[in-house]
């Protein structure tokens, strides 16, 4: 695979391809954080795009609608995960916190730069209700952009029809009735009418929540982000790194630092420029699956129970699942899955040994551990660079690749500078 300038370590022919792939990865992180099956945003996009022509939405707005649907809840990544991962109804204080997510998401979409400009407004107003009782701005009627109204309806239907950690999926007929009862309140009547027509005439709509024969699979690859630049790609990478660490304050900056350390070690190991850049990107992406782990587990000061440990360890599989479905990023999927493997076979999830663990995964194991040791965790004290290195050297040959540990030791002065 060739690295093209401006694509930030993503094996794509252009910055546009890299930005498109990373946007899909970010959307998957948002799905995971909210406790949805992967592809939740894509299913909403599918429904919103099917409704668009029935509501006379101009075709030029479709790319913005598509990306807004993918990223509509990206702002929730920065809200406490317990809102989404515990059972029972949402508390009043949590509802107030939830009100922030459209604005956080809109600001993020605007900052990313690669997306169509209208995405920010659609995300900002996708929780506005037609009767003026939504949030954040209590817009009503045509003050709400049509694309945001379509997204509201598609989000409501797909979310209610899908299983979530804090509630069961509703039967699809019941969800349909719920949507129609919202006409004139949550949804503009014409949007509800269009939905009714589609639901009555297209049986695939009912499959959206079932998890079987997902009709959104038929969506075209996506609308490529043709105007994206190398800077946009970098911004997306850093956003994904931050999103991966957003579940708990103890992780703040972990993925960024791990990426930088990985690049330094890769250079020390004599890897070529492309491999060095890929090591950096892998560092940014390695904990992408942490979005699916509740913050209460990540930040727990006591020993984890076996169930909690299982949930925690699942982050590598989550990351693998996200990346393997995005062609431009699938090369990162296995190293992400295996960055907690140990060369003596005592790691997880596949208990691989020695060279069965790819070099990038072995590198990531060291960088991840070094950063975790030197930045502290609630369950143990922070170590200085030398103590952290000593701890890692102690495990060389058991957990870690000795040659890579040696590279860390020899580059420690540069790393700690």
């Amino acid at each position, binding site marked *: 695979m060739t690295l093209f300038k401006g694509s930030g370590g993503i094996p794509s022919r252009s910055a546009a391809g890299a930005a498109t792939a990373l946007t899909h990865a970010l959307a998957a992180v948002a799905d995971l954080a909210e406790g949805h099956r992967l592809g939740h945003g894509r299913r909403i996009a599918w429904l919103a795009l099917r409704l668009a022509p029935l509501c006379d939405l101009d075709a030029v707005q479709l790319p913005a609608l598509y990306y807004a649907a993918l990223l509509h809840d990206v702002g929730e990544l920065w809200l406490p995960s317990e809102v989404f991962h515990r059972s029972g109804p949402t508390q009043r204080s949590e509802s107030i916190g939830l009100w922030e997510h459209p604005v956080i998401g809109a600001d993020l979409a605007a900052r990313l730069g690669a997306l169509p400009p209208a995405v920010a407004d659609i995300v900002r107003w996708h929780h506005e209700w037609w009767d003026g009782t939504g949030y*954040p701005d209590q817009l009503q009627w045509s003050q709400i952009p049509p694309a945001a109204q379509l997204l509201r309806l598609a989000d409501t239907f797909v979310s209610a029809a899908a299983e979530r950690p804090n509630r069961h999926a509703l039967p699809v007929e019941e969800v349909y009735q719920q949507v129609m009862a919202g006409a*004139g309140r949550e949804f503009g009547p014409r949007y509800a009418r269009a939905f009714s027509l589609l639901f009555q005439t297209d049986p695939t709509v009912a499959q959206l929540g079932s998890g079987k024969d997902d009709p959104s699979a038929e969506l075209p690859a996506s609308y490529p982000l043709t105007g994206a630049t190398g800077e946009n790609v970098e911004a997306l990478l850093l956003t994904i790194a931050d999103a991966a660490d957003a579940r708990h304050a103890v992780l703040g900056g972990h993925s960024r630092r791990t990426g930088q350390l990985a690049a330094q070690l890769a250079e020390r190991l004599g890897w070529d420029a492309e491999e060095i850049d890929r090591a950096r990107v892998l560092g940014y992406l390695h904990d992408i699956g942490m979005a699916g782990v509740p913050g209460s587990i990540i930040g727990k000061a006591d020993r984890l129970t076996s169930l909690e440990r299982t949930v925690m360890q699942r982050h590598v599989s989550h990351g693998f699942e996200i990346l393997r479905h995005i062609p431009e990023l699938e090369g990162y999927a296995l190293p992400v899955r295996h960055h907690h493997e140990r060369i003596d076979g005592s790691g997880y999830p596949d208990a691989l040994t020695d060279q069965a663990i790819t070099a990038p995964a072995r590198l990531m194991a060291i960088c991840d551990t070094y950063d975790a040791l030197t930045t502290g965790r609630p369950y143990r004290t922070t170590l200085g660079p030398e103590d952290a290195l000593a701890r890692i050297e102690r495990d060389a040959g058991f957990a870690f690749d000795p040659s890579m540990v040696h590279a860390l030791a020899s580059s420690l002065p540069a790393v700690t500078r």
Partner: protein
Amino acid sequence: MIELRDARRSRSASHLHEICREMGVASIVDPYMGLPTHLNYLKRHGIAVHGGDPIEWFAHVGQGIVVNDSVILRDFEIGEIVETAPGRIYPPDLFRAWEGVFFTEEQCRYLAAWHENVKSLRSDGQVGLAILGLWWAFAYWLQKLAAPDDLLDVPPSELAYAYIRKTERWVGDNARHNTVRHAPPAVTMSRVSTDAVLLTPPAPGDDGRSDARTLMWEAWWQGNPYQPVERLRAGGSGDASAWQAEFAELLAGARKFPLAIVPTSDGERERVASALSDFRSSIEERRFSDDEIYLLAR
């Protein structure tokens, strides 16, 4: 039939908050606040907010979602508002004037019952929340009147219950002193000292009926469906020079505030900026769309 005018978006709370954050505004007054959900947004983000409006029901809603920090309406209290209380005598003809024109006989009975029930609530905060929730139910009925086939028939008490229940989301404490007055803008501005003033007078030529529902709901609150309320807000003359004079008076009263934030639109921008320049030396612009422009004047 009431005309439901589809207003353009000229102001949004989240954009306003962005501006406040950027300009370092820690306190703000809006003397023409209207429905003060935007002040509630700013309050929830830690800004001390003050508001006022010549229309009384707006001021009451302000008591509910701006001044009130903690009082909500519990389920049984909402039930007592939306249903007729056994043994209580309600004036059956209070809103008879609207029957057959805007509302059904049943709806008019409920409007009368709600009017009486809200008047007997214990705290200003609860009154404000109830008025807000009932306003949405009232607006739903008017919408259904305009498009009967599009909206479901919902039993009045159920509709009102759902909307009042929703108001509790607007209640929160920002650990700041927030106030709302039922008063003309000059009075509201004279009583507070803040970092910024938000000036959103009606557009020139607007006869004060830009949203007729607002005036009907004031009549409901007053218990008098015949009450003339159209001149409670400025801009009613429809004459450009008169509007200019009224706006100038407002701007003169707002001189003491270091920053004036004036929402406007592309079509009105020049006229508003020209009036502002007589009172302020520096004017900046934040444009979110052609309809949503803010002039920031120091």
